[in-house]
């Protein structure tokens, strides 16, 4: 008798599971009509993208699922065609572009700044010069009260502690911008480490994503790291001013980033903004791009999906721009928007442009 009851109960459980599974499959059929755009990539713009996509979803009902796994991840997944678009602050190298089976467009969405943030008691406001930054991250300057740091920061008491360097453990566009800058200002850096999304760091701890680095610096006394401006601001972490090419110590702000972005923009928008010539420009700035395939008819992509993607890109570079400044990103300049428009218009499906 016990067994019968048990068997009955089991039957009921099985029924429940079957019904649930059927529901899920039905749900798939219905929800399959709802367009979901999947993107992955840089953590650099994650705060603004997550805001943008949330607003976009509320206004247009289209879900954009963006996972911040690092620019390297965005590039890789786009090449593998497992996502609809990639987010990257690293310019795709010619080698990567060659590995992709079809042309990929770099569509700029905004510009940001990479700041040097640190954890020192009292949160002193520090100044940095390019060579000092390079040598700290190369491991050549080991202590906070090193002569070279004190020399540019007279009047600030620096502790006699070892500098703990924090860098990215994942493939990062933020790293790309940072190392691109360091390669321009330090020959030793260029030779020893170079520029790229994943580097052979001479020293330091690795954090995952901008959040990881910010978290580690926040928790580790006497540490130093590099993050996108918004991460330092949101976590109330101090960051240093940096001496730019013209000799001015510049703070990273929307204004100084925009000044750095106000340079010659090539048609494909694959341009680096670091070590800017602008007198008041912040030297470690960079664009962040959305990477898409120029020809959207690949795999089993529908024209509708491609069209939604293009609409999203258009919105991001126009109405969506108003979300940049509250989050301390620098919106695209008029010229930037023009170039972006041209690129978006060139996206095609089966050779027919999707947006006129």
């Amino acid at each position, binding site marked *: 008798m016990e*067994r019968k009851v048990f068997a009955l109960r089991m039957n009921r459980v099985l029924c429940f599971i079957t019904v649930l599974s059927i529901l899920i499959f039905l749900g798939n059929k219905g929800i399959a009509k709802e367009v979901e755009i999947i993107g992955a990539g840089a953590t650099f713009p994650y705060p603004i993208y997550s805001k943008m996509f949330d607003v976009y979803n509320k206004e247009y009902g289209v879900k954009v699922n963006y996972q911040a796994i690092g620019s390297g991840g*965005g*590039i890789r997944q786009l090449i593998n065609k497992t996502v609809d678009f990639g987010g990257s602050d690293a310019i795709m190298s010619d080698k990567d572009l060659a590995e992709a089976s079809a042309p990929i467009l770099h569509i700029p969405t905004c510009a940001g700044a990479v700041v040097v943030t640190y954890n020192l008691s009292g949160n002193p406001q520090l100044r940095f010069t390019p060579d000092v930054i390079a040598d700290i991250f190369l491991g050549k300057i080991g202590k906070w009260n090193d002569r070279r740091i004190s020399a540019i920061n007279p009047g600030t008491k620096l502790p006699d502690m070892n500098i703990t360097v924090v860098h990215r*453990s994942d493939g990062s566009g933020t790293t790309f911008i940072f190392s691109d800058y360091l390669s321009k200002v330090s020959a030793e850096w260029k030779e020893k480490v*170079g520029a790229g*999304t994943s580097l052979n760091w001479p020293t330091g701890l*690795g954090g995952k994503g901008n959040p990881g680095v910010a978290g580690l610096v926040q928790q580790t006394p006497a540490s130093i790291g590099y993050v996108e401006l918004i991460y330092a601001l949101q976590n109330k972490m101090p960051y240093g001013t940096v001496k730019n090419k013209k000799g001015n110590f510049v703070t990273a702000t929307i204004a100084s980033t925009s000044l750095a972005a106000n340079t010659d923009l090539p048609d494909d928008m694959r341009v680096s903004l670091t070590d800017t010539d602008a007198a008041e420009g912040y030297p470690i700035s960079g664009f962040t791009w959305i990477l898409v395939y120029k020809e959207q008819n690949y795999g089993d992509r529908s024209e509708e999906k491609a069209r939604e993607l293009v609409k999203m890109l258009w919105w991001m570079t126009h109405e969506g721009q108003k979300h940049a400044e509250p989050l301390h990103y620098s919106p695209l300049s008029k010229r930037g928007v023009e170039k972006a428009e041209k690129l978006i218009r060139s996206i095609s499906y089966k050779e027919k442009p999707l947006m006129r």
Partner: protein
Amino acid sequence: MADHSIADVLALKVDAKTVNQHKFVLSESSFRKILYLAAICVLILLMAIFFSLLFSSLPAIRNFGARFLARTTWDPVKAEFGALPFLVGTLATSFLALIISILFSLPISIFLGEYFRHGAASMFIKSIIELLAGIPSVIYGFCGLFLLTPVIRALETKLGVAPYGVGIFTASLVLSVMIIPYSASIGREVISLVPSDLKEAALSFGATRFEVIRKVTLPYAYSGIFAGILLALGRALGETMAVTMVIGNSNFIPTSIFSPGNTLASVIANEFTEATGSLYLASLIELGLVLFIVTTVINVIGKIIIRRMGVGA
């Protein structure tokens, strides 16, 4: 016995007529074929896993050869990869974790196998150990990150070492807690299986209980305990999440137990989704292949020993 069983069968209201008149009449041979098929599927699955890993690591294997295991640079920019930092990190954390955990699991096995074999205390401790094994690894990592790291950081400051907080030592501590259940439960079973006449003989010679444990029980159960340790090691080698969160993610050979490092598993977790360049990806997959082979060998050896001891693990 037979009568008893027929009654059981009848109680299930099963009889030839009603059962065989079911809609789908499964013939015996096709049913047996299904069973064979299931088993073969499993075999194929395993082979497929191995060969997938092998095939995808080929570019790296061809490029670096066996020296891959001895090279120390992991430079994605220059596309030079070597596995040594991660091998060292993996072995260091796992062995350190093992040593720490043995300090706990051995006494626990002895207590449960010898002294508190039955009763409330034994149930209690056994349940706790099983619950320990059930906690997901990401939660261990989370707790390690927030609870343990500040403590280690304070320790490091006191010792005058760089106050990372994360690193090999922290990862080993977290790992050791996670693998205690594995060696403890097997150790306990093996110790409780030691035949009592051996122990009684020793006792009758005037040995104290403690001496009996040391000189009789432990040597007898030695290989079983060893197997349990091997299984715990296998688990530690492959542990990913908890380690990734507290190891500091540095692709260098760690210089001290307080320095950051990376294990085979944690570097894969960190860098897999973004390995641009097929050599990079192939190298990561080769790391996965190495991990696969190492854990398999250790686990299989452990299981063979256990089976030989006749323990129902």
